[in-house]
């Protein structure tokens, strides 16, 4: 308040003057607060450090109009972090230097660790093992809950399952149809060019039918669902962890595996095969339209020829893949969601990890399916 009535505030300045006893002194004048120093700190700092080294120098700080901790610390550092012997300082400004002595103590630096890469590798391996163990544990818990559910079916979370089904299934119809259709069109177009060269036009039905129904349909639908629903599940559970909603469920005696996780796994295991059928169907329509334009095979004859080209067992295989993919995606998403720590960064990392891991897991599972069922539904007799 005194400052407001004081005369105009001058810029901070360092001047060399002669003190009364003839000794050389440094006089600091003007405003040494953050508002004035913000733009001049670097130049004033170098100026002070150039002039400061002489330990017996006389310092006159009585001309300073305004001071705050920022200005005080700047001057203190120029002093080499100890108070000079000869110092003139306004009494009101004393307070800013009073607790600076303790500030000089340095924080300990982290020691150099030559084994760091080894340690980091070990930690990564252990973390992977921990994730695997967590997922298996969660799966086991879900199995136990499912048995309890079979014994008391009326107490099941049917409402939650139905809501999840709508979110992960019905609401995903649009995007899976769009992507499936385009993939069908592109695949058909590219294959048609090659097949035309050999005069093997009619084999477009075998190529598209087998490729889409057996492999592409399931994998595309699973990747889309992993990105769409997997991330949503992880984020939802993660936020519930951050806001202590999961703990609130626990203390009410409502196990969150039954209320939250089981419904999601069941819903995805039901919705995924249906979505795969839907995606494959739309992709085949796209492929048929494209084949019609490129090769002159009518849509009608395309679908008439399809059952002969693709044995029905492939459809069952695709549905089976769907159940496994859906359960895998939900399980992984829930696992990462439950591991989120109560901070924002962990939420982001958890969601990313969840999506990357579930897509990887889906593709690995698909490879396993391919090996196991390599003799099923392919040979055309």
């Amino acid at each position, binding site marked *: 308040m005194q400052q407001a009535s004081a005369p105009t505030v001058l810029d901070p300045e360092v001047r060399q003057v002669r003190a009364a006893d003839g000794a050389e002194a440094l006089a600091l004048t003007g405003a040494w607060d*953050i508002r004035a120093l913000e733009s001049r700190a670097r130049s004033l*700092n170098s100026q002070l450090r150039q002039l400061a080294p002489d330990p017996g120098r006389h310092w006159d700080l009585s001309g300073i109009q305004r001071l705050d*901790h920022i200005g005080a*610390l700047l001057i203190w*550092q120029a002093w080499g972090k100890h108070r000079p012997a000869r110092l003139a300082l306004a009494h009101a400004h004393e307070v800013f230097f009073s607790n600076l002595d*303790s500030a000089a103590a340095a*924080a300990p630096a982290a020691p150099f660790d030559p084994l760091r890469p080894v340690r980091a590798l070990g930690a990564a391996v252990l973390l992977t093992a921990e994730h695997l163990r967590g997922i298996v544990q969660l799966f086991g818990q879900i199995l136990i809950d499912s048995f309890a559910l079979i014994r008391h079916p009326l107490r099941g979370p049917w409402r939650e399952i139905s809501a999840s089904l709508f979110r992960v299934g019905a609401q995903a119809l649009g995007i899976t149809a769009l992507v499936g259709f385009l993939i069908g069109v592109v695949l058909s177009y590219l294959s048609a060019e090659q097949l035309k060269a050999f005069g093997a036009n009619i084999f477009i039905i075998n190529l598209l039918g087998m490729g889409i129904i057996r492999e592409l349909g399931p994998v595309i639908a699973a990747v889309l669902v992993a990105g769409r629903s997997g991330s949503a599940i992880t984020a939802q559970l993660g936020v519930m962890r951050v806001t202590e909603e999961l703990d609130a469920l626990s203390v009410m005696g409502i196990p969150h595996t039954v209320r939250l996780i089981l419904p999601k796994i069941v819903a995805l295991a039901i919705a995924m095969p249906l979505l795969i059928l839907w995606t494959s169907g739309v992709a085949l329509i796209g492929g048929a339209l494209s084949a019609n334009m490129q090769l002159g095979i009518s849509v009608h004859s395309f679908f008439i020829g399809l059952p002969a080209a693709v044995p029905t067992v492939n459809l069952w295989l695709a549905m089976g893949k769907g159940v496994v993919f859906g359960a895998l995606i939900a399980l992984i998403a829930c696992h990462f969601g439950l591991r989120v720590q109560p901070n924002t*960064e962990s939420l982001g990392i958890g969601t990313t990890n969840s999506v990357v891991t579930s897509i990887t897991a889906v593709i690995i599972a698909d490879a396993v399916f391919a090996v196991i069922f390599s003799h099923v539904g392919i040979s055309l007799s």
Partner: protein
Amino acid sequence: MNPVIEVQGLWTQFGDHVVHKDLNLTVMPGEVVSLVGGSGSGKTTLMRQILGLEQPTRGTVRVFGIPLQGSSAQLLHKIRKRWGVLFQEGALYSALSVFDNIALPLRELRAFDDEFIRDMVMLKLDMVDIERRHAAKMPADLSGGMIKRIALARALVLEPELVFLDEPTAGLDPDRSESFVRLIQSLHATLNLTVVMVTHDLDTLVSLSDKIAVLAEQRLIVYGTLREAISVRHPFILNFFLGERGLRALSAVGASAKLDGRH
């Protein structure tokens, strides 16, 4: 002396619901002003409008004489460097350590070197009584009281002239809130801060505030010292200050001395 905050003819309306109706408020330098009111009376909204986080429906808010509405981004940026805000939950950046949280505003200025910033952060930690070994910790590992202290250190690191405190003692145990009040008192005394505070805690209110602004019926029904505030016969004031809890707080802090004409 120019007022630090000047709110004139402020209206806030959400649809048909009027929160503030022609509200005026002036805060002078060095004052500690407490905003009091029932829940839903618009204390937090008013504070957010003064901070420029929300726009009033009508009326002007001036901070340091600069109107928040219609000023250039540069001017607003200058204001924002002159105030510090302590949010109710601390609002520490959870991705940054304690040290980096406090260092962030200093680094943003791009005016100081690393050594200066390190010393300044340590100084601020000392100021709010946090041991230095906590500097490397993440906010998630800290207790509520420590988060508030560290958030205060962050709010104070740019030497603000104006400090906003949103429920500074909510969620702290009585011992902690007592020491928090003492901390703010001593900071106010040394740094000559202007403080605007929203609080429900009567002890905090009585021991810190110079002036009390009571929000009710969409306006300030009283704006004055504690003595002036409790002399008004209004149901909210009767309930808030002169209820059982209120009287206990008033007598416990020895507010009778304050009432007997210190103001």
